[in-house]
């Protein structure tokens, strides 16, 4: 019933009512039986292994790491049904919309990307909204929902979170505000069965953080989205290098890591390799160099050889060597940290030494990382003595190991190691050494024992 406020006592009455009223929302508490009876829809994907079919995903990276371009590429893949990067299958092709708020020349650059796209784009349901008159809020949500329904959109790319964010008034709880922004987008996307990619940038000073914590803003940014896709450059490669490391993690998503290469001519990325080895791509490049034609170009001689240590189907170490005109031989060796101190490195070296002896070499030059406490004693125990500083090639190894290199075995063609396994040199409990031979034409990949 209505009542009137005439006195201070009436006011106090309203206050008391505000304190005493119980929320009609009661938290639900479920038993095991009720939990088991829940029907859980299997998570479905829009792009296999990359993007969930509904809900918001955060796509972020440092400036100039091609975050927007990769987002556009996913939109082209979804709209055309053509596999992303010629590699990741689009499960539910359909219309895609890009909201370009970040780049004032957005329409021009997108037009350029489309014109150069190696994927045929004519007539595909790909839309661009260059600049919308909204920031996050009801208006934007209503407009997005209308677009999703009208165009039957499968994917919306919002470029970018920062550009679409409204001004924050003083005293606003930023964690709440960001969570609120992202949660509303996520809810809209889930309700309408549409995927939403929100483009964002790394925060300044996030260099030391684990990649999934790098998104600028609060933890709410990644907590409120179903999947996170992070794009970065390799600090080990020079600043013009076109390779990018993409790391994907999501609630119902098997984590993926892959290396992409930016192509200037077609303004897109090509797939280089995928798997746990991706973060170690710079080391792979060195391995490739060891088997390729560029290593010590003036001094390296053919033939070249190498050995890999395998634990099951995982490569846990390798050695590569060749004759040179400068010293008699050179070799490089690397063993994954968790497989060290089991004699793998010395066995690898012995295998290579046998090969050197067979080729008539009299001295072996090894490259030792001066910063590695284990490397020097290792070689000295095997009888090596340090060369002068100028003579020692300090490279490789660093402190990384090649781990989880399943992908090398499975997809050696894309990692372009121009070598193949020609035999098993030696075996031991838990690991074995296989012998690699350089392949002249460069197209045959290394084959592990499980793929032969």
């Amino acid at each position, binding site marked *: 019933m209505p*009542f009137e*406020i005439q006195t201070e006592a*009436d006011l106090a009455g309203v206050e008391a009512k505000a304190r005493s009223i119980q929320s009609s929302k009661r938290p639900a508490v479920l038993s095991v039986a009720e939990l088991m009876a829940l029907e859980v829809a299997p998570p479905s994907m829009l792009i296999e292994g990359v993007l969930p079919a509904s809900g918001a995903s955060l796509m972020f990276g440092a400036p100039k790491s091609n975050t927007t371009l990769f987002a556009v590429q996913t939109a082209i893949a979804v709209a055309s049904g053509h596999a992303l990067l010629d590699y990741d299958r689009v499960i539910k092709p359909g219309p895609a919309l890009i909201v370009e708020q970040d780049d004032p020349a957005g329409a021009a650059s997108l037009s350029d990307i489309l014109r150069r796209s190696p994927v045929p784009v004519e007539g595909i349901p790909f839309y661009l909204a260059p600049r919308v008159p909204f920031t996050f809020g009801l208006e934007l949500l209503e407009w997005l929902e209308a677009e999703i329904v009208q165009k039957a959109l499968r994917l919306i790319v919002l470029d970018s979170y920062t550009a679409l964010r409204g001004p924050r008034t003083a005293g606003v709880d930023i964690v709440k505000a960001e969570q609120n922004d992202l949660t509303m987008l996520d809810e809209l996307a889930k309700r309408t069965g549409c995927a939403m990619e929100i483009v964002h940038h790394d925060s300044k000073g996030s260099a030391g953080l684990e990649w999934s914590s790098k998104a600028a803003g609060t933890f709410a940014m990644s907590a409120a989205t179903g999947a996170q896709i992070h794009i970065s450059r390799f600090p080990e490669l020079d600043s013009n290098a076109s390779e990018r490391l993409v790391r994907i993690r999501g609630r119902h998503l098997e984590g993926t890591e892959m290396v992409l290469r930016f192509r200037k001519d077609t303004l897109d990325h090509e797939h280089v390799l995928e798997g746990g080895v991706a973060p170690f791509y710079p080391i792979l490049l060195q391995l490739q160099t060891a088997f390729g034609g560029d290593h010590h170009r003036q001094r390296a001689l053919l033939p070249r050889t190498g050995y890999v240590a395998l634990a099951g189907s995982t490569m846990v170490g390798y050695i590569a060597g060749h004759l040179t005109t400068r010293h008699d031989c050179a070799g490089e060796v690397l063993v994954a940290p968790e497989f060290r101190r089991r004699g793998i490195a010395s066995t690898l070296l012995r295998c290579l030494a046998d090969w050197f002896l067979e080729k008539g070499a009299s001295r072996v030059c090894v490259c030792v990382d001066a910063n590695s406490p284990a490397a020097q004693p290792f070689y000295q125990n095997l009888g090596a003595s340090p060369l002068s500083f100028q003579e020692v090639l300090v490279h490789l190894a660093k402190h990384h190991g090649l781990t989880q290199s399943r992908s090398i075995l499975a997809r050696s063609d894309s990692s372009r190691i121009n070598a193949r396994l020609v035999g098993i040199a030696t075996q031991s409990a838990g690991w074995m050494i296989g012998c690699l031979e350089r392949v002249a034409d460069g197209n045959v990949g290394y084959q592990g024992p499980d793929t032969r």
Partner: protein
Amino acid sequence: MVEGEKDVEKLREYGFAATTNAGGANSPWLPEYTEVLRGREVILVPDNDPPGWRRVSIIAKALFGQAARIRVFDLPTNTKDISDWFVAGHSECELIAMLEGVHAV
């Protein structure tokens, strides 16, 4: 004065002059809102939940002594908001009759 645009629209449909403030139940009540309502007869309709009542309690305090008259329409239990009340089968005439018959607590 209701909570949210949906309720404003609903009341306007029935010919009432209705308004709300931006940002939902937890957004601050600004002095300029009080200015707009100075000397007017105001009927506060809280959403039937703790934030709704907290909001109305704050607005009532702000309007006390400023508005010509302040009434609170206390929705029945299990009625979420004024739209819900109409959905439950109540009419605008009923609302007017209830407000006319209002007396001090």
